[in-house]
């Protein structure tokens, strides 16, 4: 056996989504971004984009075909979420296609494909910050009745919506359910609660990778064009270092996130190393946002702080998203519990495989 004759695929297999599908999604969202008018303070749901995504089978890309989804893997799903976030597409892809559809599958409930979002109501039936709540035909609630977890598909007509907005200006509404409607939901496995959290956190991490990479692109264009002291500011080493750190943290976030996706896809989420990988993705991506957001705004100067500029369409959601399915601190706590349980001998296997075996 020599270096040039070894079949590399017996050693390592690169993981990537179908390039044609990725290319299609990239083109679609680039065109969308380029046609968009100046950003507003509030994110407004784009019905026509949603219709277009529906037609292309992208609104429920990763949902099972039996329930009307497109049956693609999270690898393709990952490409969709990063591309959409990079265009700041104001559509509930995660809520509708990745979470609500999955919850309904877990509960064995039908899905007619009408726009849905998800909520985790409290004991009294109230859920805060439900994204796109006001636009949903039905809200899929994951609710603990005191003994077990239930999933209820509650039509909009049976909930009360109080409109609000999150940090990113996205529709983040308070949704009040009738407790009886929640109690009538289908009982699901107790693990569904944590699995839901992981799917949500991984989806948010993927979106944040998309936003980070677009922020890097915006900053690069800016520093190459903007001149001060007679030359493009990108020629100043201090500025180059700000940008290099954006690129580095984005790459780290992508590595952690793509690893979690790959592990989930390989095993249909069954690999016991998935929880560590998702927690690592949420932690790395969450902390990366601190550097990326700060440096991007610093390199962009005052113009990047205006409503008119595209940058805040990347930076505000990055900060809003990173706490949504568990705060960064909570993910660090989860990781710490795993690391401490692993101890001296177990830490390295944990790093490699997400388990101490």
């Amino acid at each position: 056996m020599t270096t040039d004759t070894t079949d590399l695929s017996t050693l390592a297999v690169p993981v990537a989504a179908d390039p044609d599908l990725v290319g299609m999604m990239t083109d679609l969202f680039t065109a969308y971004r380029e046609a968009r008018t100046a950003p507003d303070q509030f994110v407004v749901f784009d019905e026509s984009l949603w219709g277009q995504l529906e037609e292309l089978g992208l609104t429920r890309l990763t949902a099972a075909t039996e329930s009307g989804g497109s049956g693609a893997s999270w690898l393709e799903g990952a490409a969709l979420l990063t591309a959409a976030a990079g265009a700041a597409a104001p559509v509930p892809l995660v809520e509708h296609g990745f979470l609500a559809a999955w919850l309904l599958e877990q509960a064995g409930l039908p899905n007619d494909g009408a726009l849905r979002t998800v909520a985790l109501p409290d004991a009294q039936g109230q859920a805060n910050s439900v994204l796109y709540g006001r636009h949903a035909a039905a809200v899929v609630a994951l609710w603990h009745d005191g003994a077990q977890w239930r999933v209820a598909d509650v039509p909009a007509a049976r909930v009360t919506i109080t409109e609000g907005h999150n940090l990113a200006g996205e529709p983040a509404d308070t949704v009040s359910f009738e407790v009886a409607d929640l109690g009538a939901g289908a009982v699901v496995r107790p693990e569904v609660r944590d699995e839901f959290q992981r799917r949500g956190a991984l989806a948010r991490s993927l979106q944040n990778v998309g936003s980070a990479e677009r922020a890097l692109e915006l900053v690069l264009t800016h520093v190459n064009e903007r001149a001060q002291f007679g030359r493009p500011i990108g020629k100043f080493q201090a500025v180059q270092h700000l940008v290099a750190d954006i690129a580095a943290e984005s790459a780290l976030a992508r590595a952690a996130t793509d690893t979690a996706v790959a592990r989930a896809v390989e095993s249909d989420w069954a690999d016991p190393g998935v929880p560590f990988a998702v927690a690592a993705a949420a932690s790395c991506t969450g902390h990366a946002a601190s550097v990326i957001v700060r440096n991007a705004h610093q390199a962009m100067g005052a113009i990047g702080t205006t409503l008119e500029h595209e940058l805040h369409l990347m930076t505000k959601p990055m900060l809003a998203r990173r706490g949504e399915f568990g705060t960064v601190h909570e993910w660090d706590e989860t990781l710490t519990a795993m690391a401490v349980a692993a101890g001296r001998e177990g830490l390295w296997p944990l790093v490699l495989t997400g388990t101490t075996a």
Partner: protein
Amino acid sequence: MPPVSVSPGVAIEQPALTQLRLEVRAFVADAIRDGLFVPHVDTWLTRWDREFTRELGRRGWLGMVIPTEYGGQGRTFLERFVVTEELLVVGAPVAAHWVAERQIGPSLLRFGTEEQKQAFLPAISRGDVIFGIGMSEPDSGSDLASVRTKAEPDVVDGVSGWRVTGTKVWTSGGHEADAFFALARTSPLDPAHRHDGLSQFIVDLHAPGVEIRPIISMGGDHHFNEVHLDGVFIPDNRVLGQIGDGWMQVTSELGFERSGPERALSTFHLLAETAEAMQTQTLPTDTGVGRLTARISALHQMSFAVSTALQGHQNADTAAAVTKVLGTTTEGDIADYVDLLAPPGRAADDALHTLLHAAILQRPGFTLRGGTNEILRGVIARGLGMR
């Protein structure tokens, strides 16, 4: 246009590699139990053990990427990658062979003559010949092309060769090594073409005219040296490759050098010991351990993916620079993080303080050696089209 990314991608380790890992892991577990070594930090710089190195050679874990006809194992960079990871995370004493394994072997394979390959590669693969690197000089650090060590043609007893004169510095392990590669000027500096006129010489460190003086590090250790070359005669057959190719040679293997697992794992054993101390409640449980473990996990993936890309002959220079900047920063952050948590103590008190103090003292070097992080950020900026 696809989004800008300097990410190396993700590659999944296959069972053949995992199997190899487990073999190495079982060996080091036994070695620790049998007292062959005590786990430490930054062992690829500070822990020399020729006998341990030879044992690795006997097990086929040296010269892994050297073809069998030169006494190597004829395996892949990926197999080498997992072996080195397993040795690094337990802080095994790997400094003796590190330089020869990582860069001298691959450089000889690529640029050396047949005679040079026969002369050195089998010995490197057995762990019998130990190399150092003679690049830096008192006045040439980051600006390596400014080296002043000079080589002038000469003939001794009918053998034509070069007389090399100059001072090399920061030569890690130079006092223990058998030979080093010295970068020298073979034609005068042309300010318009600064990278021209440099050549590398294979210098026997026991040759007449070589004087090695210790430089003691701030913790009292001796791993650095100053190497004076006073008209050392180097025959033509110890010129690496072609005269004038020195710059191309020193920059060509940088992808492997920069993205290797050692760039994030120098303090891994300290992190593992910290997790253990939290488990036994010797240290308060704190979320920094989880945060840093996650980062190391992502860095492992990046480093592995860069190796996979390089093994497939793809250029990964920018991704390698990114991996090194992040990795060396993180391994240093581990030292500082544990220092924030740990009660005061003496290195002799317990394993945690032994590792912690060594890590704190070694940390400044992490982000300097092999190209400083400031220089590497410049490399990344160039990769992004800013320069």
